């Protein structure tokens, strides 16, 4: 068991003919992900990496039975690509693309709320269920199957934490990157709930950062609904106010969204908070 993706996931790659899409499609196939096809308007009927290319997501879904899509299209077309996948009723849509204008994402969210689809991201590294399926850009070898669920806003910081766990012999059920944008499809809270319900997940690692109130809401959820222990790390303790730290969402506004506020809130509900990423395995083993 795992959450969101497993060996039965059938993936279609939106933007498979582009440099990024093609490269990562190859990586995913090598990992063992069941990539059933790709989408690129105007290139339907062609083949890439031995997989059929379709003009639309709808056609790809009808022909292959895909239940998951991943988006590697440039920012100006990304919102459109998400909406197309929603329209085709793809269950899980993962958007890697960064720098999507926030007003586009507000519209996408409004449509998602009344749809059958779940969006992960945008601006995220995707997700990985070790030994079963990888949807995104996470390096596959850093993870290994086991009992810890990982959820994070960051890319390389997640790799750091997952790798540290793996090095210490602690495996993972699923590693989920929710992305660093201020408005995204899936929140910490959604993923925590899934980990809580997943029988194979015993403990959870949450990696947050400055900006917004997602971590604070996660703390409330942990307090009220979680029986499984959670270890957290929050990046950006030294970030100045009013400056965007790489991720569009990583911004302290006034005194809202500081690392100190988030750490305090998480600690107050019994979450162990690591002082630095390499300490996460120690806290998980306690």
């Amino acid at each position: 068991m795992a959450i969101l993706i497993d060996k039965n996931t059938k993936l279609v790659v939106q933007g498979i003919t582009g440099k990024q899409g093609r490269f990562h499609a190859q990586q995913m196939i090598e990992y063992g992900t069941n990539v059933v096809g790709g989408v690129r308007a105007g290139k339907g009927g062609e083949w890439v990496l031995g997989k059929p290319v379709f003009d639309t997501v709808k056609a790809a879904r009808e022909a292959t039975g895909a239940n998951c899509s991943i988006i590697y299209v440039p920012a100006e077309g990304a919102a459109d690509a998400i909406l197309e996948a929603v329209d085709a009723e793809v269950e899980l849509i993962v958007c890697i693309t960064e720098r999507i204008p926030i007003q586009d994402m507000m519209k996408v969210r409004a449509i998602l709320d009344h749809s059958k689809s779940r969006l992960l991201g945008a601006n995220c590294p995707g997700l990985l269920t070790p030994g079963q399926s990888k949807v995104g850009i996470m390096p596959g070898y850093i993870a290994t199957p086991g009992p810890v669920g990982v959820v994070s806003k960051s890319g390389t910081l997640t790799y750091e934490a997952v790798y540290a766990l793996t090095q210490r012999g602690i495996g993972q059920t699923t590693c989920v990157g929710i992305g660093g944008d201020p408005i995204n499809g899936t929140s910490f809270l959604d993923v925590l709930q899934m980990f809580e319900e997943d029988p194979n997940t015993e403990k959870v690692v949450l990696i947050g950062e400055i900006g917004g109130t997602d971590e604070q809401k996660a703390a409330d959820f942990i307090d009220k609904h979680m029986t499984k222990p959670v270890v957290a790390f929050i990046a950006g303790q030294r970030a100045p106010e009013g400056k965007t730290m790489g991720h569009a969402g990583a911004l302290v506004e006034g005194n809202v969204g500081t690392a100190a506020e988030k750490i305090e809130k998480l600690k107050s509900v019994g979450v162990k908070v690591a002082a630095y990423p390499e300490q996460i395995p120690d806290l998980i083993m306690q």
Partner: protein
Amino acid sequence: MNLHEYQAKLRFAEFGIPVPRGKVAFNANEAYEIAKELGGVTVVKAQVHAGGRGKAGGVKVAKTPEDAREHASKILGMNIKGHTVNKVLVDPGANIKGEIYLAVTNDRAARKPLIMASAEGGMDIEEVNRVSPEKIVRVHVDPLIGLRGYQITELASGINLPHDLWKQFEKIAMGLYNCYVGSDATLCEINPLAVVEEYGQTILKALDGKMTIDGNGLGRHPELETLRDTSEEPQEEITARESDLSYVKLDGQIGCMVNGAGLAMATMDMTAHFGEQYGIGPANFLDVGGGADPDQVAAALRIILSDKNVKAILINIFGGITRCDDVARGIITAMSEVPTQLPIIVRLIGTNQEEGLAIINSANLTNMTGAKTLYEAAQKAVEAVRGAK
């Protein structure tokens, strides 16, 4: 990206919002000429990307053109919260009968645009929110439908706006929302939206304006990109933007180069964790991108080295899809392009980390040391700065 008050007001005017007919002056004589042309009382206002201009003495009322020149000469060159004033706006004075607050912004938690109004205009809205949040009327807008007339009525009645001003208010609120959408703004704020007496009539006018544009939306608005004022930005941040690097200047001594925003923040935190007791910390936030491409590494190195506070450099790269040996070669190549004698601590982890570290070690660069963990790397960087002092 922040706009200046005069830029925001010009943009508001394009969306049908009444604004004063002031002009910008870059020196005291221009301020005099503008004041003379406007006639009567004028207001000289510092145009700078900092709040609290009034309190800092950056806003002055001038009775005559000579007064305007006098005020402008004092305000120009003034330092407001670390920003030097390079221009002033000279606006005509207004006969103010009341002040309203009106703004459209993104409500991140609600994932919707939020329009806010308050009868307590002219004050710091965060202060109003702290003391009496009930005095701010908030209405969420469905981004698919846009702002509707009944919602504007909710705002107008919520702030007890006299009925005879509703028609004007509706036009302004709709204009502000359209401006927000049409500019990919994250904030459009009028404070105050003043009730003024003009030629025997009572009208609403945007006496001050503030706009912030979503950097990711700028591609759709080339006309707004030309409004970018780089004169107040650190040179390093300008260069970084041109090289497509994510960089924020800080005031410490350890130049940080990291791939990925989250890891970059964690690295900053670690240097401060060890260095704080000695007054040592990160000189910057810098994300070279997940792939740590050699050209980007070289560009990043140039930016870090242009900061004269930097006494040591910490390179922290997680090689995921990118291999550490490739990154190591990239770093060595970059070093030959951008030579430096500063101590450099390199930590490579992930794919082919041993090979990567071996390349760093065998390059025989005496100022470069490897580190296995972030913990060790941050400690070494702090020690290097202490040694350099």
